[in-house]
């Protein structure tokens, strides 16, 4: 089953420069939520040697001296551009997994290797032309191979189709370091190295039973996937913890806003629980609705809209208020919806914000807040969204201070669209 992994090149930077032609070909970086450190770099910024995670205050002088354009993160813009890219990608496949804000797996069943190469190039060209976002496309018969092909494509022209049984495929896999494999973290790579397994090629030829014995099912999957045996279905792998998505198809088509509201409520509650369980807070939320695309005879409507949060939060009532407002805005009657979902974007460790905002909070107080949250969740569920909105008061000024260099919401706010000089 051939799969394509499509990923956006320097996604946040590409979103920022798209509406700023003066910055094309120039070094650009995007900062994390507090304007704390560099979380995205344009190829030109990478070439200058600005590392990922570079603390802004340490690099301020160099960034200025090198004329690097510095942006605060603008998740409203990135969320909208992501939705556009995903919408274009869905034209190429009926089965797609939006794996993160800037990556997606597409099933490309029933194509020959030559057709796959043509299709991969067309995907790249169409996304670039329609949305302005450059993407790389890697194709393989398993997710692991598609990911490998995608990474290898970055050294070439951005498109690579990996036939793992061809001589070229053998060469690529044989020369690929294990630590560069998807899902192989530093420690796993070190333990593989202890067995003399340093490349994807040697891992591919390793004894399955040995690998299984040492590394369990996860290790065995790597061997199988490298051999073209698909173990990771679409959607089976959890998204990286930058984003969190909760969605579920309905048992039957839904037409009423109130029913969608209930579905979104459940997703937000789960998202809140998951965030708190992992000690994370979300910087932005998105809500999306899908109609049945396998029924072209019915009217289709697949809206998605996002909203940046005043401060990153895992506080369910706040997430809920925002998501319900988005839902009200995107909902249109007259469609048969089959799925609703909630996306939490820009996840940050909750400790980071506690340092600045809640330093004085003692554990008992925190426990109270946690219990309050559970109680408000329940209240919100039964009494509607207005119950939860008071939580947003009071943080606005602080938030603004931390977003010094935020660009406009070029694509989602009419008052902030790009200006074209007509003179």
């Amino acid at each position, binding site marked *: 089953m051939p799969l394509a992994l499509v990923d956006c090149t320097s996604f946040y930077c590409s979103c920022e420069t798209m509406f700023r*032609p*003066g910055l*094309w070909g120039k070094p650009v970086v995007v900062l994390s939520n507090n304007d704390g450190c560099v979380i995205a770099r344009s190829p030109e910024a990478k070439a200058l040697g600005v590392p990922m995670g570079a603390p802004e205050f340490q690099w301020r002088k160099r960034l200025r001296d090198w004329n690097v354009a510095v942006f605060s993160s603008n998740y*409203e813009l990135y969320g*909208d551009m992501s*939705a*556009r*890219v995903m*919408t*274009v990608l869905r034209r190429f496949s009926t089965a797609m997994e939006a794996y993160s804000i800037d990556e997606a797996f597409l099933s490309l069943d029933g194509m020959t290797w030559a057709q796959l190469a043509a299709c991969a190039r067309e995907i790249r060209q169409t996304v670039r*032309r*329609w*949305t*302005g976002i450059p993407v790389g496309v890697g194709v393989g018969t398993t997710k692991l191979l598609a990911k490998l092909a995608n990474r290898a494509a970055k050294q070439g022209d951005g498109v690579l189709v990996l036939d793992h049984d061809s001589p070229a495929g053998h060469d690529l896999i044989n020369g690929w370091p294990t630590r560069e494999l998807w899902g192989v973290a530093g420690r796993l790579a070190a333990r593989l190295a202890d067995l003399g397994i340093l490349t994807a090629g040697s891992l591919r030829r390793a004894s399955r039973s040995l690998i299984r014995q040492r590394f369990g099912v996860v290790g065995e999957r790597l061997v199988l996937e490298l051999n073209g045996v698909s173990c990771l279905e679409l959607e089976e792998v959890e998204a990286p913890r930058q984003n969190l998505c909760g969605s579920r198809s309905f048992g039957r088509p839904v037409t009423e806003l109130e029913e969608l509201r209930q579905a979104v409520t459940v997703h937000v509650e789960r998202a809140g629980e998951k965030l708190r369980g992992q000690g994370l807070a979300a910087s932005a939320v998105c809500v999306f609705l899908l109609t049945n695309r396998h029924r072209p005879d019915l009217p289709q*409507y697949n*809206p*998605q*809209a*996002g*909203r940046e949060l005043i401060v990153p939060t895992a506080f369910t009532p706040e997430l809920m208020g925002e998501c319900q*407002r*988005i839902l*009200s*805005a*995107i909902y249109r009657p*007259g469609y048969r919806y089959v799925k609703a979902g909630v996306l939490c974007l820009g996840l940050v460790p909750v400790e980071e914000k506690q340092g600045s905002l809640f330093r004085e909070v003692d554990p008992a107080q925190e426990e109270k807040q946690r219990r309050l949250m559970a109680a408000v969740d329940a209240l919100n569920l039964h009494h509607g969204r207005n119950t939860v909105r008071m939580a947003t008061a009071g943080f606005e000024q602080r938030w603004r201070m931390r977003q010094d260099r935020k660009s406009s*919401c*070029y*694509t*989602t*706010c*009419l*008052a*902030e*669209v*790009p*200006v*074209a*000089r*007509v*003179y």
Partner: protein
Amino acid sequence: MTDFDFPATVHPVASFPRLRVEVPLFDSRVAAGFPSPAEGYIQRPIDLNEFLIQNQPATFIVRAEGESMIHAPIQPDDFLVVDRSLSPQNGDVVLAVVDGEFTVKTLRIAKQRTWLQAENPAFPDLEISEEREGLVWGVVTGSFRRFAYARTRSD
């Protein structure tokens, strides 16, 4: 910045706040044999997004500033709908990038030369050549505006 009072709260991807007209459109066709009128004729509300946007993921909105396209007609502060999926052709109004800035002009392609034509005699055309590189960002497919007096009124 405009003095528009668009809500800064939620910005749907697929629609502009307050741009949907919630006016039922009455179908003027008369079905013979059904003397009873309006019921059954109320259609979906007019949706300006549908009217202005053919290809949502490839469509962007920009605001015009300046008067060189006044006879297009594009007035200052008009919002322009830009579709990136269309191939630019001779005579299209395009959003172009010249010298690192966005500009809106009519694209003219002849045998030996390509230029961006102003639609106002007071403004010069922009020749696209080896010295001055130009790039079409997208094709302008429509425009919209609200009259100044309506922007502040709510009665």
